[in-house]
Every structure is written in structure tokens, then in C-alpha cells.
């Protein structure tokens, strides 16, 4: 199916669950609310003419700096190996207590990326067997990929600039 047909079909079958659709650069994109996600995902996977059996990735976006609501978004990239077509499902998530239901019962490949979504954006995954950090250390605080998480640099200890003295060098006890 072409992207237009996919979007039309999904819109016709699940009119109340789909918030909006788009076709950027010819890709099929649908916008879904978090509480409808599992219903839409099950339909996309089970419908014989769509049959999105392969979830290629789940990622998150933080739209803090943009003039838009809601703040977070989870993006699901789906592909059908039989029909060779793809769709992108975008789920807007509120800023307060962000959470989204899991789709790992449909695609096991969602387990790791969803855990990463929790780790990097602090979005709680309802029904996920492991709501804990995946990539960052367990004792880490903060969610690194949020836009309000500062990108810091490591302070250097030594430099080829002769006048440079780092804190470590300054606080070094005097040698004899």
C-alpha cells in the first residue's frame, strides 16, 4: 500500500482514535493519544492488509523549546515485511507525570527502546516489566535527553596554554 492508502485506511477504521495524520516526504504518519495507543497498535499489527509485524524503533522527542503542546512525544516506527510498507506513530505525552502504555506485548523488540525512553526522558511505561534505567547507571539522577538537562563539559586538568591553571593544579599541595 502507498502511504496515502495506509493513512486513509487507518483513518477510516479508527476515526475516533486518530488525532491527526500527515505525509511528510511521502511517509505515512499518524498522531495518537496515549490512551488509544494499545488499541491502534493492535489494529496495525493484526489487520491483514496492514500487518505491521516489525517494530523497528521507539524513540522520544522533547519539544520544550517549541511552541507546542504537549511537551513530550514518543515515536514508533513500524514496518511490514510482507507488504513492504511503513508507518510512523507519534504519541503526544503530557508534561506532568508523563506516561505511555507499553506495546511490548505486541512486539518484543519494544522492550529495550521503551526502557531507554524511561531512562532518557523519564516517561513512565505502563505495563513494562522493567521500569528502570537501561543505559545510564542505576544511581544516576535526571533524564539526559530532556532539553532542560544541561550539556556539561568536563573540566580539563592540563592544557598546552601555560597560563592555564585548573582547580586541581591550583589546589595541589606544594612539593618540597
Amino acid at each position, binding site marked *: 500500500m502507498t502511504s496515502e492508502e495506509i493513512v486513509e485506511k487507518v483513518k477510516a477504521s479508527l476515526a475516533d482514535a486518530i488525532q491527526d495524520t500527515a505525509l511528510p516526504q511521502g511517509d505515512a504518519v499518524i498522531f495518537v493519544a496515549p490512551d488509544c495507543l494499545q488499541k491502534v497498535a493492535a489494529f496495525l499489527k493484526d489487520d491483514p492488509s496492514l500487518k505491521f509485524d516489525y517494530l*523497528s*524503533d521507539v524513540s522520544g522527542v522533547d519539544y520544550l523549546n517549541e511552541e507546542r503542546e504537549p511537551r513530550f512525544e514518543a515515536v514508533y516506527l513500524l514496518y511490514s515485511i510482507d507488504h*513492504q510498507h511503513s508507518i510512523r506513530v507519534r504519541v503526544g505525552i503530557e508534561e506532568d507525570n508523563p506516561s505511555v502504555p507499553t506495546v511490548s506485548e505486541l*512486539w518484543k523488540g519494544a522492550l529495550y*527502546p521503551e526502557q531507554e525512553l524511561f531512562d532518557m526522558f523519564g516517561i513512565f511505561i505502563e505495563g513494562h516489566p522493567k521500569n528502570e534505567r537501561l543505559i545510564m547507571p542505576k544511581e544516576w539522577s535526571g533524564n539526559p535527553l530532556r532539553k532542560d538537562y544541561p*550539556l556539561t563539559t568536563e573540566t580539563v586538568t592540563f592544557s598546552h596554554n601555560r597560563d592555564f591553571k585548573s582547580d586541581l593544579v591550583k589546589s595541589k599541595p606544594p612539593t618540597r
Partner: protein
Amino acid sequence: MADLKENLHTDHMVLNMGPSHPATHGTVKFLLTLDGETVVNLETEIGYLHRGFEKMCESVTYSNVFPYTDRLNYCSAIMNNIGFALAVEKLCDIEITERCKYIRVVTNELARISDHYTNIAAAALELGALTAFIYFVEAREIVWDLLEKVCGARLTSNYIRIGGLMCDLPPGFDEDLKASYPKLDSLFEDVDNLLTKNRIFIDRMADTGAIPVESAISWGFTGPCLRASGVDYDVRKNHPYLCYDKIDFDIPLGKTGDNFDRYLVRMEEIKQSFRIIKQAMADMPDGPINVANPYLRNPAKPDVYARMEEMIAHFKMVIDGLKPPVGEVYFPTEAANGELGFYLVSDGSGKPYKCRVRPPSFTLTAAMGEMCQGGMLADIIPTFDMINMIGGECDR
């Protein structure tokens, strides 16, 4: 007899394997629950090589992302370059030149060959076949010498640019390539003879780490691991990018999806990649390698110093960077281990608002638990080798 069993320790044993284990490459930890030598449960812990790829990309311009992509899968750096370049080009709607497409295909396939060499060599080494390792590392060195002639670097190539390439192929590259084929073929032949019919190797590889087709698709397997299960899915064939639609090549498929099939698929892919390179070199058209618009691709240095418009464009490109239209894009490519895709979000500025990479080995590593459960402890080694988990790509 009953008394004897009461006094024996028959509980499960919990064992940490890695990260400082030769077979886990220092980048992953397995928490094993063992019943004797049988694996009851395996939990994977990743993140030891996390460097904040996405966060770094959000702070630099689009063209400055390329050196970071080199360090995702360092065995086939050019493939990551190409994946990112194609995603940005789709976002900006840039049509690259015909010669550029062919050069990208040649370097892409050279990178694929070097990745498969590394994978099979490391797998053979960890199963005790040191000779095969030495042979394939020698072959890989020849391929890297060729890549060094093209872009000046062996591993971190940084060769591809948005809308073109860093430079054209060096003069005499075709001859160098042709001169290296006999040596590469004989090394391939040697390794093939050493491993493919080797009793010990087959015993370790066959019927280990197998996974049913439905499970493989559900876990999001791609690349040689999926094709070893018999699923005919290759992005190069299904959604041809660059000039793969004009080139004649076959996709090897396995039957059982065990480690030995994964090995055979990779060996055949090396042959097919050489076939692609030979055709692409023969068909390569002449012409420019970069797009003509100086606001899309940094103009050539002589033009920058001689012409006004190019000088302005150069300044704008270096200071502000390329500014794609507002939007989002996902572009999948077929890397050596599977689908490598970049998901970009642009807010109209010169820096990516979001740059997510979909690494192939991330999803494969997630399935380690299912693949190893019920098998022997020693089967973890070939299984982990054949999914070819690269720390830089998995942890980003």
C-alpha cells in the same frame, strides 16, 4: 541415595559474565542463572560504552555530526556516515549526483566486507581458531588500506558529506582494487576451507542460538541474523537507495536461523559485496561528486577564494551550518548487521533538534536472553559473536 542428594548443592548458581570478559569485549555484562552448565536465565546489562551520542548531536551543526557517526560502528564507519547523510538529504530534498551514488556504494560495500571480516575473525578467535582470525585480519587490513587511499583514515573515515563526498576517488583506485582481488580471494578461500567444513567449528555453531522466525521478527531482528532465519528482507532490495536498484546481486538466505547459518550468510554476503563493487566500478559515470548549490554542500576551496557567492556560502555553511526545513524524517539503510536508520527532527536551525539512531545490534542484544535460554554456557560465546554487538553502536 536420598540422603546423598540432600547433602549436594543442587540450587541454581548466579554468575556474572563480563564486562571484563574477553568474549564480551568489555562492553556488556550478562547476569547468568545456571543449572550446572545449562543457562536457566540470562539478563543483559548494557550501557558501558554510552557517550551521549544524541545529546552531543543536538549541540553541533548537521555537518559536524559525521565524526560522531564514525564512532557508532567503528568496524564500518562509512556505512554510518552514509546513513546519516541520506537522512539529511531526504529531509532537505537534495538529489545527489550519479557519480556520488556509485562511489558511496563502493565504499559502503568495502565497509560491509571489513565488518563481516572482523565479525567472522573475532568469532573464530573466540572459538579457538586463531589461524582463521589472522587470515581475515590480514584481509581486513588490505580493505582498510584501500579505504585509507580513498579518505585518509582506516577506521574513522569521516568521508561522506551532506550532498556529496569529501573528495573523489584517488587516481588509480580501480587498479589498486583489481590488484587486491587475488589476495583477498585466496584469503577468503583459506578461511572458508578452515572453518566451513571444520568439525569443531560446526559442533560449536550449528543448532546453537537458534530462534524461531516469528520470534526473530517480533524482536526486531534485521540483517544477516534475520536472513539466516529465512526471511527475505534487505533494505537494499526492498527499498533501494543510492544505485542498488541498478546493480545485480543476490541476498543469501539461511534455513534454521542458528549460528552456523548466520556465519554462512555473512560469508556469502562478502562474495556478493565484491560482486557489487565490481559492477559499480565498471558502471561508474564521470561527472561532479558534489551538488552544485553552494548553500547545500561546502563549495570547493579554489571557488571559495576566487568567487564572491561561494565565499559567502562557505562562511554561512561554516558558521550557521546547513538549515533544513522544519520537519522530521526517518531513513533506513542496510548496514552490515541490519537496519541502520536515522530519525531526525529539525526546528529550522542549523543544529539537529533531535538525532536518533536506530542501531541494529541494540535490538539483537535485547534478544540474547531468549536465544541463550536452555542452551549451554559455552553456547553464549558463538551466539554473542554472531549477533555482532558493537558497543559503540548499541550504547551510543
